[in-house]
């Protein structure tokens, strides 16, 4: 049987003064890794959390964002009364054509300007998006040059409080209220009346069409119908799928996170190696004794690797704890898909924390490999003579 785990645990703790720096080092590496990946996870979560599964989003074929998509009025009229689209109690099709425009607005702390996604939306369009709820002020009144803004955007941009005014397109708009998008992509938007938006920004065409379908089968039918119609250069997707695919921004963040973690882990590996060499050095006689008692070399090897892993795992758990306070913290960056500001939260999921700890353990194992081999290879008599 191998050496008991309590032996390994106690050895880690008894030399805590020497090992605390390494544990902290590993903790910081894991914290950085977890935090950067939490950004990517937050982005992806907000993207995938967007939309209603009963809706189909229709944009121009090939466009990667609503703001660069064009749907003409004729095309909209062709789709409007298709049978797959559900009707409301009055028999009107539950379909809405939106106008999406990017407007450049000043940031709150005078950090320059950024593009904001402005959505010109219809009353039906608002109904199709039940996850968006008013939290301050009131909805906009069409014709009064009013908008509603995401409460999360209001934290980042100037003049976004109810009653504030800002200028764009040569006109002044008033903020009538704020909404909560339910941690979705809508948290990065500003809404106003669709017709007013078209007039304001001189848009002949719509940007996208959102339709509620009667059933999942109807959704498939509708999308196929649109794809196969040669008159319509349009493409339909389930709304949830459309948004969850807009994760181009997350990729460079993930790459950055992996690069940073790898680079920092090299330093951490050296630290772990150093700590373990010192540990082996101070227990040389102990190792010799264990060998005399009959313990095998591979047991010694395993024992030190386990110790390195325990050490690093403690650092990993500490690192996750260090990063936890930022879970849910709101931040924003430029969305590569929409070319506008996207607001999202740091999201530290249990899986991410687990990845962080696994990463730490790998660092610990790699770092203790050479010292463990050294320990296992010590000739017994030489070890016994050690001071």
């Amino acid at each position, binding site marked *: 049987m191998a050496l008991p785990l309590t032996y390994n645990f106690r050895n880690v703790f008894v030399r805590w003064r020497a090992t605390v720096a390494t544990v902290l080092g590993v903790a910081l590496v894991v914290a950085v890794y977890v935090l950067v990946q939490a950004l990517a996870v937050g982005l992806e979560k907000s993207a995938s959390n967007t939309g209603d599964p009963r809706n189909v989003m229709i944009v121009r074929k090939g466009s990667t964002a609503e703001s660069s998509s064009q749907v003409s009025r004729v095309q909209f009229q062709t789709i409007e009364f298709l049978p797959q689209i559900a009707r409301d109690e009055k028999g009107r099709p539950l379909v809405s054509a939106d106008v999406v425009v990017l407007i450049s607005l000043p940031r709150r702390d005078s950090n320059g300007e950024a593009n904001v996604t402005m959505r010109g939306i219809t009353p039906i369009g608002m109904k199709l998006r039940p996850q968006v709820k008013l939290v301050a002020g009131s909805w906009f009144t069409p014709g009064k040059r009013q908008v509603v803004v995401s409460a999360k955007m209001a934290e980042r941009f100037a003049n976004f409080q109810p009653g504030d005014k800002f200028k764009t397109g040569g006109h002044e708009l008033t903020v009538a209220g704020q909404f909560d998008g339910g941690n979705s992509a809508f948290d990065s938007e500003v809404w106003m009346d669709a017709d007013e938006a078209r007039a304001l920004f001189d848009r002949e065409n719509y940007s996208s069409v959102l339709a509620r379908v009667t059933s999942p089968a109807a959704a498939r039918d509708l999308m196929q119908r649109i794809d196969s119609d040669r008159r319509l250069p349009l493409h339909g997707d389930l709304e949830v799928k459309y948004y969850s695919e807009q994760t181009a921004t997350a990729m460079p963040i993930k790459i950055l996170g992996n690069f940073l973690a790898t680079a920092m882990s090299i330093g951490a590996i050296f630290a772990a190696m150093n700590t373990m060499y010192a540990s082996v050095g101070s227990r040389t006689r102990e190792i*010799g004794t264990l*060998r*005399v008692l009959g313990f095998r070399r591979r047991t010694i090897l395993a024992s030190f690797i386990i110790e390195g892993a325990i050490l690093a795992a403690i650092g990993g758990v500490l690192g996750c704890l260090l990063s936890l306070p930022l879970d849910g913290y709101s931040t924003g960056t430029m969305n590569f898909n929409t070319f506008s500001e996207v607001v999202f939260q740091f999201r530290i999921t249990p899986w991410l924390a687990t990845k962080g700890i696994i990463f730490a353990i790998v660092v610990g194992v790699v770092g203790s490999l050479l010292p463990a081999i050294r320990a296992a290879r010590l000739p017994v008599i030489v070890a016994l003579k050690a001071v």
Partner: protein
Amino acid sequence: MAADNIVTIRNLSKIYAQGEIQVTALNNISLDIAVAEFLALMGPSGSGKSTLLHIIAGIDRPTSGGCRVQNVDVTKLNESELADWRNQNVGFIFQTFNLIPVLTAAENVELPLLLTQLSRAQRHKQVETALELVGLADRAKHLPRQLSGGQEQRVAIARALVTDPQLIVADEPTGNLDSHSAQEVLGVLQALRRDAGKTVILVTHDPKAAAFGTRTIHLEKGELLNDNSV
């Protein structure tokens, strides 16, 4: 000798290289050790006594010659076999006690048993017995740093006994002890031979310690000098 020999050594030599120089630690030693002997190996520093002890105990190999312990030719066993053999057949006591600092007295004594197939309950029973034998059952949960030198060495003896080996080897076991504790320890070793029939091989440079044995042999420069049987 009429009694059974537990250790039979024939033409044992050990030469090792120290840099460019060849050092002869043992030169053509032949020796018989009988069952239940308490043999004292004496000699000045560098005489080879520890080397001889190490070879008998299976933690070193000779350059030439044979050494049989209980009819097992230990020079022919490989690393793994030697490890197993030591675990079952030899109890080693060191000058520097060599207890594992992070383990309690009981856990230290239990260590050799971890390599056997005994169940947890069985192991604990044997540990208890061993500690009682050396009179330290009440210190079972103490860490080595909470014990005096003499107590530490007695725990080490318990550890050496716990697998019930036939052979107990001790390398200067009293070197780090005050005279009172030294007497105690040597007394325990004597009792082991007398009451339990163990064979004890003691390496020492102290004639007073050697006097506890049944036989003393002297080594100098790798060679046996005289054979002082009692």
